[in-house]
């Protein structure tokens, strides 16, 4: 800090874009546009200006392709995709023609015309209502500045060559700026503009760099070398903090790091209570690509492998071989842990074009999931056959979505038997003990769970739909979002009923909805007797931490108490209080 010590502490409030706390010296990057003068040119200069423009375009294209290559090597291809948008802008016919034709007509330098054309586009796009279109401004701006820098022969501060650890301060960071940042040298970043869902924010999150955006004037307040605190959890930036502020944050940072480290240390430990009661924490996945993350976060299996993505974005139906190869890969990679495959759950909010599912007014209650599969046994059998064949390579299970009555379950099981019979005839082996489960997400199924339990090996509670159907609340309708209450006393009773009837029939129960991944509900669900929690990979450590910090008798007491309340509010308040007692570090 040195001579900056006399400067006053300033606190700015912005938008939290990426969590974490960072402290360090500020590094201001020049984001002001290079000065471009309005200079008239002669007719003879026109061809030269055009060829300068063309050269700059070629250079820019080269530059973008290089960055794109670098990013897809270091990060994911998803992030590299942003640059496809940049290339589209760079190659845009209307844009290029406009620059050249105005250059010919108005006879100003190409720099001046370019800046003016870009300005015009930005103005038009910023007037649009659509969030997506508004965000294209940063693509246009980014490309425009790149071309301009090549025209003037000026290079931007290279973020890849930073020598010390800094906090980057800028008016705006383009996605390509963030992409070039290295975690080793960039502690955090803060910008004047930008929103929570901008590409820049998304990149910061995936790089795990704390960031605050939308600070309005931060780039004008901060001088190079000022000491900064970036609180990406709350969206706060403190410039030149006083001793006591700094101390407070240093302590908080230590606590935060300590907590993260402890969570990492939990990876190989089981989800076991202090008094030795064990449950299973498994993960929800959509594609085999997520398996490394599942294992890294210490999930002991997969509780929900969604298979819809096979059927999406394509013209034909996935073959048995293709599905077999994918299921087999997942089974092998996860072995000896179990993988629960959910059979096709189309409809509701998930559609595929090639199947020609007619438009429905009420799709969540329509022709979907198991209903669709039973009507199209050809598609269903292909999937079942692929799952059965892959079952030899690991520990697979399968479950049917949206079961609403016993007949459906029996019919699905009958089709499964036919597929097994067919495989036996063809001398193809499979796991004869493959466990079969039913998802309980329709209130009618929950009510007759004692009857359904006789037909399956396990239940998996799908809370998202169960809550929506039980409370008659469309979960995509924002106007009634306040009614979507996982802690509604009715939901608690329904869950208790499902678990109790399953246990008295001797089968186990998992949960794969959002509710299982909410730290707040863990003590309650544990106390109700849930056997398996299937959650998104990143939440696994925190949930383990909660379970490992309490006893099963404590959990049962909490569950008992919760069932006595009459409102969701009381239940939530009570759970928050209890959770604070169990794990004070958890933020809810």
């Amino acid at each position, binding site marked *: 800090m040195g001579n900056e010590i006399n400067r006053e502490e300033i606190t700015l409030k912005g938008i939290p874009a990426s969590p974490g706390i960072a402290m360090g010296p500020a590094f201001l990057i020049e984001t002001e546009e290079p000065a471009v003068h309005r200079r008239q040119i002669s007719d003879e200069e026109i061809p030269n200006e055009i060829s300068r423009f063309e050269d700059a375009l070629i250079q820019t294209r080269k530059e973008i392709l290089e960055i794109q290559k670098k990013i897809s090597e270091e990060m994911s291809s998803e992030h590299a995709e942003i640059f*496809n*948008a940049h290339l*589209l*802008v760079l190659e*845009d*016919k*209307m*844009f290029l*023609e406009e620059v050249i034709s105005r250059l010919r007509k108005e006879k100003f330098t190409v720099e001046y015309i370019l800046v003016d054309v870009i300005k015009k*586009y930005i103005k*038009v*796009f910023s007037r*649009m209502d*659509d969030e*997506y*279109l508004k965000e*294209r401004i940063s693509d*246009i701006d980014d490309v425009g500045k790149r071309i301009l820098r090549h025209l003037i022969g000026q290079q931007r501060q290279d973020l890849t060559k930073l020598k010390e650890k800094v906090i980057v301060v800028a008016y705006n960071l383009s996605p390509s700026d963030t992409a070039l940042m290295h975690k080793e040298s960039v502690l955090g970043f803060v910008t004047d503009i930008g929103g929570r869902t901008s590409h820049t924010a998304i990149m910061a999150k995936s790089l795990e760099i704390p960031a605050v955006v939308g600070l309005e004037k931060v780039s004008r307040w901060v001088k190079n070398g000022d000491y900064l605190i970036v609180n990406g959890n709350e969206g706060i930036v403190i410039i030149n903090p006083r001793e006591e502020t700094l101390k407070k944050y240093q302590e908080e940072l230590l606590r935060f790091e300590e907590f993260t480290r402890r969570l990492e240390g939990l990876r190989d430990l089981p989800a076991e209570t202090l008094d030795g009661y064990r449950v299973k924490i498994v993960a929800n996945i959509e594609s085999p690509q997520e398996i490394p993350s599942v294992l890294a976060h210490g999930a002991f299996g997969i509780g929900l492998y969604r298979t819809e993505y096979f059927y999406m*974005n*394509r*013209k034909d139906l996935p073959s048995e071989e293709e599905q077999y190869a994918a299921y087999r890969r997942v089974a092998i990679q996860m072995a000896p842990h179990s993988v629960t495959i959910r059979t096709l759950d189309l409809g509701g909010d998930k*559609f595929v*074009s090639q199947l020609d599912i007619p438009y429905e007014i009420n799709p969540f209650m329509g022709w979907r999931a198991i209903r669709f599969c039973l009507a199209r046994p050809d598609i269903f059998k292909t999937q079942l056959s692929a799952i059965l064949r892959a079952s030899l390579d690991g520990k697979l299970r399968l479950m049917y979505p949206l079961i609403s009555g016993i007949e459906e379950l029996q019919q699905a099981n009958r089709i499964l038997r036919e597929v097994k019979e067919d495989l036996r005839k063809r001398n193809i082996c499979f796991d004869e003990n493959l466990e079969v489960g039913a998802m309980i997400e329709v209130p009618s199924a929950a009510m007759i769970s004692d009857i359904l339990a006789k037909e399956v090996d396990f239940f998996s509670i799908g809370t998202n739909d169960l809550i929506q159907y039980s409370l008659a609340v469309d979960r995509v309708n924002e106007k009634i979002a306040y009614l979507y209450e996982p802690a509604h006393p009715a939901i608690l009773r329904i869950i208790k009923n499902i678990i109790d009837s399953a246990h008295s029939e001797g089968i186990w129960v998992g949960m794969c909805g959002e509710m299982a991944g909410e730290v707040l509900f863990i003590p309650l669900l544990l106390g109700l007797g849930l056997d398996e929690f299937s959650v998104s990979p990143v939440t696994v450590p925190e949930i383990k931490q909660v379970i490992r910090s309490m006893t099963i008798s404590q959990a049962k007491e909490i569950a008992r108490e919760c069932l006595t309340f009459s409102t969701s509010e009381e239940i939530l308040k009570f759970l928050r209080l209890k959770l604070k007692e169990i794990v004070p570090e958890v933020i809810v």
Partner: protein
Amino acid sequence: MRKIKKKIVVRNKQGLHARPAALFVQVANKFDANIVVRKGTLSANGKSIMGILMLEVGPGTEILIEAEGEDAGEAIVALEKIVLEEEPELIR
């Protein structure tokens, strides 16, 4: 030179925004024909992503696609498909 015009109501769920717009432009650029998209009194070069985005074509909007050139017929067929499909597949 062939010139073909076709009025279409956009069925694509996102309208001609985001990826569908990019797809539209990619496909348009494969043809030699000049392509113009009109919405009301506004018009844009069908081969320009910025032009298409600036038209702000939402789902359910009526647009007019004009193609002029030897392969105008094929161009119209290909572009119409993107606009009419609810979730067009991306071509890479």
